[in-house]
């Protein structure tokens, strides 16, 4: 269907979001392949922590922020016809922060001091939202460089998918916050400044003055980069609401992920961001939920049980030349287990309906046997996406 191709052709950035375990990375990669199949353009897919086999299929042997091109021969071998180029990069948070500090530091001295601060590594590595901020940073950076026609970002798994969108604002607020002002008050005047005195009294007792001093030192340095960081955060926010940017929300049709997808889709729209599509992934065939199939299952069970010495089970046993007992067991099992699968399919189709009003396009990708871990798999996933409207 044209919907997917239109989306991929009209946008410069696509952010793929959704809760953990729904196949975001694979969908992001397949979107990249789909774009390159139709457009003679350079497409970049930025992924975070893909499954090993998918990573190696994409030629990503190690983490690196420098995009790597998937060779045309690899596509040829996989039987996937691409007109454009697909590049991939795997986000490396630590290196990303180092690059960021290097870029934003006003002088060599500040840069060296920040990178050497004992808290720096901890803050950048363990800082829960640093992945989110970095992802936004990278996106902005790659977009600004203008080397790619389309950048697709597989957003990091996050306990609240929205924290990625809030990351730039939080960074900006942080620089304007009272806390940062307090932390960076010169040591001697701390206890004399009316506003910060209670904070320091408590913080000193709880955290110990040494730790507090380490934190303060770090943020004094960090503050030197305020202008750069705040400007950048503002630019990233603008990019997120830019009409050239679209979000694709990926979900399965299980309860929890689809609940989160609905919440995410609504929140995106509320924030003025463009929701390009919702992808319902790993969906059971809708025919499983049909009355006709349920009737068939009931009829099959009845027929298998009706005449234990013959009937349909006997005919099947004769034709296949296998024991009747086994055939009866197989037919009964198929018929009785059908209800379980049909129940799941029926619930999935209900949940799919709940998604329909939320996005201009809802694409359905069927459950495919096995995980996708090569380019051919991504190619067929791209086909499913294209026909899944």
């Amino acid at each position, binding site marked *: 269907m044209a919907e997917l191709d239109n989306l991929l052709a009209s946008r410069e950035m696509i952010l793929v979001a959704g809760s953990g375990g729904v196949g975001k990375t694979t969908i992001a990669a397949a979107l990249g392949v789909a774009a390159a199949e139709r457009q003679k353009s350079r497409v970049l897919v930025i992924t975070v922590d893909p499954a090993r086999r998918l990573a190696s299929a994409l030629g990503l042997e190690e983490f690196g922020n420098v995009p790597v091109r998937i060779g045309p021969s690899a596509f040829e071998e996989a039987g996937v016809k691409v007109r454009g180029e697909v590049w991939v990069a795997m986000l490396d948070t630590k290196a990303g922060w180092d690059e960021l500090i290097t870029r934003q530091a006003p002088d060599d001295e500040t840069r060296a001091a920040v990178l050497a601060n004992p808290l720096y590594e901890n803050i950048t590595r363990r800082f829960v939202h640093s992945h989110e901020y970095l992802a936004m940073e990278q996106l902005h950076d790659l977009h600004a460089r203008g080397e790619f026609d389309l950048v697709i970002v597989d957003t990091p798994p996050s*306990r609240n998918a929205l924290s990625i969108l809030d990351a730039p604002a939080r960074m900006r607020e942080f620089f304007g916050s009272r806390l940062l002002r307090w932390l960076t008050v010169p040591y001697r005047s701390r206890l004399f400044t009316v506003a910060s005195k209670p904070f320091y009294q*408590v913080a000193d007792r709880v955290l110990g003055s040494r730790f507090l001093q380490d934190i303060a030192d770090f943020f004094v340095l960090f503050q030197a980069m305020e202008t750069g960081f705040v400007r950048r955060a503002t630019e990233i926010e603008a990019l997120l609401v830019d009409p050239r940017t679209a979000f694709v929300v990926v979900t399965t049709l299980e309860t929890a992920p689809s609940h989160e997808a609905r919440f995410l889709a609504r929140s995106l729209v509320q924030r003025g961001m463009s929701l390009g599509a919702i992808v319902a992934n790993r969906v059971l065939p809708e025919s499983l939920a049909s009355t006709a199939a349920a009737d068939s299952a009931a009829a099959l069970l009845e027929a298998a049980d009706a005449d234990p010495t013959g009937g349909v089970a006997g005919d099947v046993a004769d034709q296949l030349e296998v024991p009747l007992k086994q055939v009866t067991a197989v037919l009964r099992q198929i018929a009785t287990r059908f209800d379980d699968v049909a129940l799941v399919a029926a619930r999935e189709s209900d949940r799919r309906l709940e998604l329909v009003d939320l996005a201009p396009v809802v694409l359905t990708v069927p459950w495919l046997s096995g995980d996708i871990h090569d380019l051919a798999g991504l190619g067929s996933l791209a086909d499913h996406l294209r026909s899944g409207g």
Partner: protein
Amino acid sequence: MWVTGKGGVGKTTVAAAIADVAARHGRNTLVCEMDAKGALANAFDVGELTFEPTRIAPNLQAMTMNTEDSLREYLRLFVRIPLLGRIGPLASTFDFVADAAPGVKEILGVGKLCYEVRERHYDLIVVDAEASGHIVSQIGAPKVIADLVQVGLVRDQTQWMLDILDDPQRTGVAVVTTPEEMPVTETIELLARLRDETGAHASAVIANRVLPVLFNRREQRIVDRLDEVMPLLVDVAGPSVATVVEAARLTETRRSTGAEHMDRLRAWLDNDAETPLPIITVPEMFSRGSGPRVVSLVADALTDELDPDPGGSDG
């Protein structure tokens, strides 16, 4: 008992079910949701949970972690600051401290739980913990703080927390997975990281939503050849019988793909330790995805799998 796992594997349902089993066996149990998403309240179908525990069933209380409340409680209990109004701005800028100072937010959560253990307020605390990506920084926070903070109250208090967290008699981590590629891979990575970066001990892997074996080998061969006799089946059950057969095949393919991933996990566990971690299997319930009904079904399945001896060291 910390319950973690990749997002979407049914972590909250399993945590709720473990708490339910313990409470049913007469153990005074607290279940605590760490990420405040409301999934735990949903699992028990109760109203919004708070930092102050709510009694939701006999022997069972539930709470949700709130680091700001935890900070208040901490200041009241340990620093003995009576008038919190005076440090009001501390609370309002707390989020920023928590983001900026490594481990602070985490230790306030972990510290509260350790405090409850130390004070023996409950027989068992079940933690619906952060997903596998964050659990290491959460459970490892006292160690990080101990390394970073040289003096002060917090430093003094990391030691008793570590004593509790590192003691396999008192603290265990249950990693929930589903029989799928990414959850199994993350489980393996998490078990290695828990061992390398924290002193906490994993106590079990819980394989959730495991599909039943439908056919033995001989039966499977018949299933594979059913297309040859499809006209016979259509005669008795109508043309949609093909869909019915296809559904069984789909389920079987899913099951066998899942079984391969579980084999990979089992091989890693067997290779990893002299006494491999047990894998506790919870079948696919073909029921609702979440809510009290599935919690109770999973609790029944866990009761069948676990030795229900309340004095056992599994808790």
